[in-house]
């Protein structure tokens, strides 16, 4: 290995590390230097000139088989140029993962050179009469190739629709050639055929469903070519058995992978379809709720207006029973109107996704202000501990606290003074906030039902309401990736807990 080669490796290693730690500028400088070393050397070879790079840093000491003292091999220079290119393209978002593709080519060049030493074929590491790539250089490039490939896979992992197929090209070419070379140079094809399993395994990363089968066909062909061209000696039957076993193992892996791939593709497709249907249904439902509740208001308004007219113009002419009927119609109209409004409001929660840094203490002040009449009427006592600041939708959070506190005041036994404690606790990734009251409590079997829309536990004349408050709370908390639940002792009081992401 020449000095420049070692220098190139050091710089390439540093720049890969810098990319990994997101140090863009440092990575660019190191990469540019690697590219320069490789590219200038390539120019020297191409135009048969001496640009004095070879002995720039150090006097040469390797004289054996070098084109020029201190000059690295042309394939080494090519590999360095490619390394620089692939690191430059590492974050490029295109349909083809260029960086990974080049990485695989570097690996391929390294691998073939490395194997060349193993099987004593200088064809793969020595290009013509020029300097030869050293065995440890070849080994190093295999590492760099894989490293760059993986790094770019990692960097571009989230790009949808990007095919990994192209980025495997280098491996797909280098691996079969290498194995064939090893095969031809090994006696009897001992076990070499099974190396083709690696080739088939690569098929896993390629989108084409039948790829493993195709690769197995290629492997089979190559195993047969290997049989033709390798020394069999006089134990031909052994070679035949070896190669048959290799072919069998290649096909077992190929068929197995094919089936797994088929199933996982099917599963993925089903999941995608299911998600799509679900999203569509959800949207339909939202629209249904909104439109229907909106349109329902119209006739309801007409009914209620005519009832009022009837009352206004004919009240005196009608008897008590008729007037009771009119009052009942009006009462039901009001109830229906509030039900529809409840549904509309419930549907609207989450329509506005805007999140800001919200101070819950401030929100609580606003809520207290908005329900002052209720607090005064019931003589309620609010004890508020220090609450957190977090990213949330301000209006939603207001509604959440308002609903919970109103409920805490509302669901009280007659003649008790409501005492409500609001506290918060910091957890690992969430804030847990609790609203505790001394109210009538909830039976254990109803604790899950209370968060369903229009679900009520009491008749309207006992505790008024339409049953959307807690449903709203539940939806708001869900929209903020939290959870809501209640614990309670009947006749003693309830605690409503909810978590909000920090």
């Amino acid at each position, binding site marked *: 290995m020449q000095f420049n080669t070692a220098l190139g490796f050091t710089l390439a290693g540093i720049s890969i590390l810098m990319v990994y730690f997101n140090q863009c500028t440092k990575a660019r400088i190191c990469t540019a230097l690697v590219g320069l070393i490789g590219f200038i050397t390539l120019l020297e070879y191409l135009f048969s000139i001496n640009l004095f790079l070879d002995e720039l840093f150090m006097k040469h000491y390797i004289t054996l088989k070098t084109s020029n003292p201190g000059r690295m091999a042309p394939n080494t220079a090519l590999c360095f140029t490619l390394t620089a290119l692939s690191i430059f393209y590492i974050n490029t978002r295109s349909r083809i993962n260029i960086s990974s593709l080049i990485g695989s080519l570097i690996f391929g060049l390294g691998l073939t050179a490395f194997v060349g030493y193993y099987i004593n074929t200088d064809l793969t590491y020595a290009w013509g009469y020029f300097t030869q790539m050293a065995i440890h250089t070849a080994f190093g490039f295999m590492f760099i190739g894989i490293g760059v490939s993986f790094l770019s896979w990692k960097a571009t992992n989230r790009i949808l629709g990007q095919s990994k197929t192209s980025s495997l090209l280098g491996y797909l070419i280098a691996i079969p050639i290498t194995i064939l070379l090893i095969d031809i140079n090994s006696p009897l094809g001992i076990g070499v055929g099974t190396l083709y399993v690696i080739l088939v395994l690569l098929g896993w990363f390629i989108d084409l469903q039948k790829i493993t089968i195709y690769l197995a066909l290629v492997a089979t062909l190559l195993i047969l070519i290997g049989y033709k061209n390798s020394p069999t000696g006089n134990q031909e039957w052994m070679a035949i058995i070896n190669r048959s076993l290799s072919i069998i193992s290649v096909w077992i892996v190929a068929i197995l992978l094919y089936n797994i791939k088929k199933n996982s593709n099917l599963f993925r497709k089903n999941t995608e379809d299911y998600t799509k249907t679900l999203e569509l249904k959800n949207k339909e439902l939202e629209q249904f709720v909104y439109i229907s509740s909106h349109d329902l208001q119209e006739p309801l308004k007409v009914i209620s207006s005519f009832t009022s007219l009837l009352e206004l113009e004919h009240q005196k002419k009608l008897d008590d029973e008729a007037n009771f009927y009119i009052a009942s119609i009006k009462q039901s109209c009001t109830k229906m109107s509030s039900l529809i409004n409840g549904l509309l409001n419930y549907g609207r929660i989450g329509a506005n996704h805007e999140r800001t840094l919200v101070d819950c203490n401030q929100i609580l002040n606003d809520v207290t202000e908005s329900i002052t009449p209720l607090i005064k009427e019931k003589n309620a006592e609010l004890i508020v501990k220090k609450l957190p600041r977090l990213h949330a939708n301000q209006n939603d959070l207001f509604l959440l606290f308002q609903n919970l506190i109103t409920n805490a005041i509302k669901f009280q036994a007659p003649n008790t003074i409501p005492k409500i404690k609001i506290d918060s606790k910091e957890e690992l990734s969430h804030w847990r906030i609790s609203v505790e009251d001394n109210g009538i409590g909830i*039976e254990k079997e109803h604790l899950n039902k209370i968060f369903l829309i229009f*679900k009520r536990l009491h008749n*309207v004349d006992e505790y008024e309401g339409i049953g959307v408050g807690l449903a709203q709370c539940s939806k708001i908390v869900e929209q903020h990736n939290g959870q809501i639940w209640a614990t309670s002792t009947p006749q003693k009081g309830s605690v409503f807990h909810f978590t909000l992401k920090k």
Partner: protein
Amino acid sequence: MKKLNKILLIDDDDLINFIHKKIISVSGCANEIVYVRSAMDGIEHLKTTDTIPDLILLDLNMPAIDGWGFLEQRKKININPSPKIIILTTSVNPDDRIKASKIKEVDDYLNKPLNPETITEVINKHFEHL
């Protein structure tokens, strides 16, 4: 004309109870019409009353314990003779109808609002011995 001794209405809505009571009175098919406003009150009534109703008209959607819950509770008490139970609901959800058909205590399933013809028809159908 068949006439029952007593009908029990179970519904949380007072206006609905009023209307149903009125309609049954108009149809003249019961001597006594009583209503309660929750499933538990219904059970309590069955346990304590001197005259067991011949027919119960049961609403499904009620606060706390709903109509289904009433049917569960009903199984736990022993009343003789057992009153017929007809579900009378606003629910147009076919699932509810199917669910009701699988419960042997439920004799029929009607949708609100009730009218004099329906109640007469139902009584003729379920009380042949009268």
